[in-house]
């Protein structure tokens, strides 16, 4: 019974166990560091960094708890992530009152998409939102009869759905990939690799940018993004990826390429969401995570890295 509920076999899987210990090691290091620095230098402004680290503790524990321990729970947890992100994003994007029915159906698409990922029906999973909802939602909008601004509603709704549901659901489908002989970490290893690298990439680009940042990449969108931060981040992330390659079934060159792709697409996801925020005129998408803004501020990179990573791995190894 317990073995069915909890997949505790990861304790016997040295690869995954190692990475989990690594994650908690980093978190312990960060917390201790801020504690000591705050103790020596009480005037240092560590409030936001501390809040961020505490949020990382919660997010890492939840993520590891859901994905590593219980398989089914992981699909539900990632589905909830999509749900909250979708709600957060569409709520700030002035939809018309007459769009409510179509938006309702977009919400209904979330459990369907994750169910398709859960049963591993790849063909249906991969076309359901890009083809199925793409054709269905405009029809639902048209039936309401209000044509004023309908083009904007049609396109925005599909875009939000693609970004927050279709993109993020690739994380879940990693868990449904078939087993490859000789590769014991499986989908859990791949998911861990993707999330760990994406988040490390965020942190690295931020840190390199803070330390050496001079030349701005796109000052109109995100004044904090610099070439130094970007390049430093890409190199660090690719290096991290190289050492974590054992979580994937890929060859060394493939791992390097995939890590590089995660670093670049993570950056792109970040600035795409920044530009959206700039357009609406908000700093953060919400206040659901202390120090991080909303869920979307946290998974903006993931909505890009997840599909990129998934399809590269799917092409190379499956």
């Amino acid at each position, binding site marked *: 019974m317990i073995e069915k509920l909890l997949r505790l076999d990861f304790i016997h899987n040295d690869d995954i166990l190692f990475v989990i210990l690594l994650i908690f090691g980093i978190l312990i290091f960060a917390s201790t560091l801020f504690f000591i620095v705050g103790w020596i230098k009480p005037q240092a402004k560590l409030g936001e960094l501390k809040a961020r680290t505490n949020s990382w503790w919660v997010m890492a524990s939840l993520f590891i708890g859901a994905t590593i321990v219980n398989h089914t729970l992981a699909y539900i947890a990632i589905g909830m992530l999509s749900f909250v992100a979708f709600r957060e994003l569409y*709520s700030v994007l002035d939809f018309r009152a007459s769009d409510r029915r179509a938006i309702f159906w977009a919400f209904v698409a979330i459990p369907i998409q994750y169910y398709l990922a859960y049963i591993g029906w790849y063909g249906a999973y991969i076309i359901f939102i890009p083809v199925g909802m793409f054709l269905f939602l405009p029809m639902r909008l048209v039936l309401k009869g209000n044509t004023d601004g309908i083009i904007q509603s049609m396109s925005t709704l599909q875009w939000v759905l693609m970004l927050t549901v279709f993109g993020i659901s690739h994380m879940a489908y990693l868990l449904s990939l078939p087993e490859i002989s000789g590769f014991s970490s499986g989908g859990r290893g791949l998911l861990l690799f993707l999330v760990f690298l994406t988040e490390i990439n965020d942190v690295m680009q931020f840190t390199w940018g803070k330390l050496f940042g001079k030349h701005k990449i796109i000052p109109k969108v995100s004044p904090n993004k610099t070439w130094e931060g970007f390049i430093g981040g890409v190199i660090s992330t690719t290096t991290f990826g190289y050492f974590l390659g054992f979580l994937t079934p890929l060859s060394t060159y493939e791992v390097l390429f995939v890590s590089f792709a995660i670093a670049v697409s993570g950056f792109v996801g970040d600035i795409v969401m920044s530009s959206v925020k700039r357009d609406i005129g908000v700093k953060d998408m919400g206040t659901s995570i202390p120090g991080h803004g909303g869920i979307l501020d946290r998974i903006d990179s993931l909505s890009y890295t997840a599909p990129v990573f998934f399809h590269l791995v799917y092409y190379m190894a499956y």
Partner: protein
Amino acid sequence: MKKITLQLLYSFIIRWFLRVFVGVKFDKADFLLKEKQFIIVANHNSHLDTLTIMASLPRKIVHKVRPVAAADHFGKTKWKEMLSNFFINAVLIQRKRDKENPENDPINRMVKALDEGYSLILFPEGTRGEPEVQQPLKPGISYVLIQRPHIKYVPAYMKGMGKAMPKDDNLIVPFTSSLTYGRPRQAASLDTSDILQQIERDLNRLKDSTIQ
């Protein structure tokens, strides 16, 4: 029985539903425990408004707070009246004053509930309007505050409720929305329109503080 039902319903089930599914961000309401009695004055756009305020209350006082509702809507049938009484704990009033039957008079009914020790939730706009558009306030709240001047009112502003569940639609579509409380305040004068203006200013100030 009613107390436990209300606490279970609002402090657990509905609060969870609103927070996780609809996406309501609740303001802290612990400060209400310090007030013996109060009248929550809120803007009104949705059926979710009453549920949201009830769900935001500290569990200990949920059963001591009664929303004021229109009898023509919530007491339409005997069955509906019973449900409103039991599950919403509503004070049902008619929309027009009734000088001949003091018992039926809406102001007297609210004052009576206050005298029985209950706190009230009141939507002075009278009815649910367009989302994010404030309608002129009705004077009822002033009459009550004039008759019981020691009781404080607590302004509350809700944003987004009218988008999650607007007036002419019974379908709930999740929408990130919020409830914000202001400080409890006493009416500064005994004049009807002065009190109304004071409340309107408080609501507008809250509204401005939620838009960022």
